[in-house]
């Protein structure tokens, strides 16, 4: 784009961010402060992820951007456009084809492989902020690996509710050392982080933190031996593609309680449908009525 550097940020800023990323990779799960810049998108809308993506993007990368698992949600469209415009990179909706995937709130269903990078947008990097609001204090707790408080929270959930009450942004221990917020992905996605072959980078723009999970790193969701971690999903098959293993969105179809459960990962769903899988409510691809039309 005229008047701006490749991928918007100037090269000095990118170098600064890359240094933070390298440090983050060297200390898995540890939050690295960085000089977060203003981005032409508002704070809380992915500025951390955008800065990380801008710093790692090369001219021959293929970028996929998802929000809530979908490529076509407005914020995903907006960010994908931003990079298409400022970096002129190729974009894709295919998980398997992408070299860099920027995501908000999901990890794709298709397993990521060696050489790919997934960049998470992080609203709140501090996993203990609801229990201890002072970042001065939580920094000390991380330094001392003093995580009893987090377990107290889980204990309290079980004592009061009968089970752990966290369903997304479910805290994890990385490499048996740092407690980490996985960003608001559903707990269902947590197991995908463990020993993932792809590099996982996390960017929090407003909070000015970057952290990382290097490939093949241990990531454990906190739990108790007798109350093990439970990655929940709605107990249904996708209405469109019939998948029984994917995370589902609930879509209200009328005002009489009618609802349809469909894959949150649009690429996964479309790929399955293109392969001929049909769910209970679905129509085979290519048949009349099978095309999904814009309604906005």
């Amino acid at each position, binding site marked *: 784009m005229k008047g701006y550097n490749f991928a918007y940020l100037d090269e000095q800023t990118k170098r600064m961010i890359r240094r933070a990323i390298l440090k983050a990779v060297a200390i898995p799960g540890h939050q690295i402060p960085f000089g977060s810049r203003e981005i032409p998108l508002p704070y809380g809308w992915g500025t951390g992820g955008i800065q990380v993506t801008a710093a790692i993007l090369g001219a021959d990368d293929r970028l996929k951007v998802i929000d809530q698992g979908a490529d076509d949600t407005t914020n995903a469209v907006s960010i994908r456009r931003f990079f298409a415009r400022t970096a002129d990179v190729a974009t894709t909706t295919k998980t398997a084809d992408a070299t860099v995937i920027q995501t908000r709130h999901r990890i794709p269903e298709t397993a990521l492989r060696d050489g790919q990078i997934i960049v998470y947008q992080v609203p709140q990097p501090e996993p203990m902020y609801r229990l201890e609001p002072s970042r001065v204090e939580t920094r000390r707790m991380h*330094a*001392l*690996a*003093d*995580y*009893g*408080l987090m*377990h*107290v929270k889980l*204990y*309290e959930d*079980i*004592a*009061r509710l009968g089970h752990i009450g966290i369903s997304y942004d479910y805290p994890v221990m990385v490499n048996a050392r740092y407690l980490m917020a996985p960003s608001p992905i559903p707990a269902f996605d947590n197991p995908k982080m463990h020993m993932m072959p792809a590099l996982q980078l996390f960017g929090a723009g407003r909070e000015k933190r970057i952290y990382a999970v290097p490939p093949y790193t241990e990531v454990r969701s906190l*739990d*108790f*031996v*007798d*109350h093990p971690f439970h990655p929940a999903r709605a107990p249904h098959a996708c209405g469109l593609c019939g998948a029984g293993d994917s995370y589902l969105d609930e879509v209200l179809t009328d005002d009489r309680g009618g609802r349809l459960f469909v894959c949150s990962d649009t690429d996964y769903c479309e790929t399955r449908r293109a392969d001929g899988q049909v769910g209970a409510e679905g129509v085979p691809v290519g048949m009349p009525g099978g095309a999904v039309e814009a309604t906005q």
Partner: protein
Amino acid sequence: MSETTLLSARGVSLSFGAIQALVGVDADLWPGEVLAIVGESGSGKTTLLNVLSGRAAPGTGAVWYRTPDGQLLDVHTMPAPALRRLHRSDWGFVHQDPRQNLRMGVTAGGNVGERLMAQGSRHYGHIRDAARDWLVQTEIDPKRIDDLPRTFSGGMLQRLQIARTLVTHPRLVFMDEPTGGLDVSVQARLLDLIRSLVARFGIAVVLVTHDIAVARLLAHRTMVMQGGRVVETGLTDQVLDDPQHAYTQLLVSSVLNA
């Protein structure tokens, strides 16, 4: 430092501006022993407790702690993470105001279980059993396990703090006026409880109190402080029944007169 002491201080001094809070204090504590530090307010006893427990650094002098495997640790030069680990495993601290130590928004069971979880306990059932057991030991109805501390009376709060501290079987507990601010009848019951728990588990205690009667009931040995100095130290019975120093005589007689 003797071969067998658990905690030793040598030449500990500390001043705040022109005020000398501690002047050349030596102290020794043996395993399983209860040591009382008595004196008026401003005598330096709480400052000494803070220095002994590593919560405040001395100007000069040093404090050593002997680990179960015989290693001597300098409390004030050891790395902060190690000191913090010590505080949540081998050591405990009982505050005068239990609210300083308890989490008032967390249930009694969570409060008692926290130290176990900080040490790595990951079995909910076991943590709960231990919490229930310690509620019983501290004479709190185990049915209150899921209640918040804010529904507890002052005496119960103090007993809950003791349960929370002792659940990991610390070897050494620092107590700062543990019965202060409680009614006399509640005090007596609490003192009785502390005495029996400390004896049953062989816990060493450094106890700060302004109340000679508390020292007499709980402590094997007593140190008397005045103006930041130790003026007299010895077996509690000896110090209190046959005080040598004029200040100790005054302290003891003022209790008798009261």
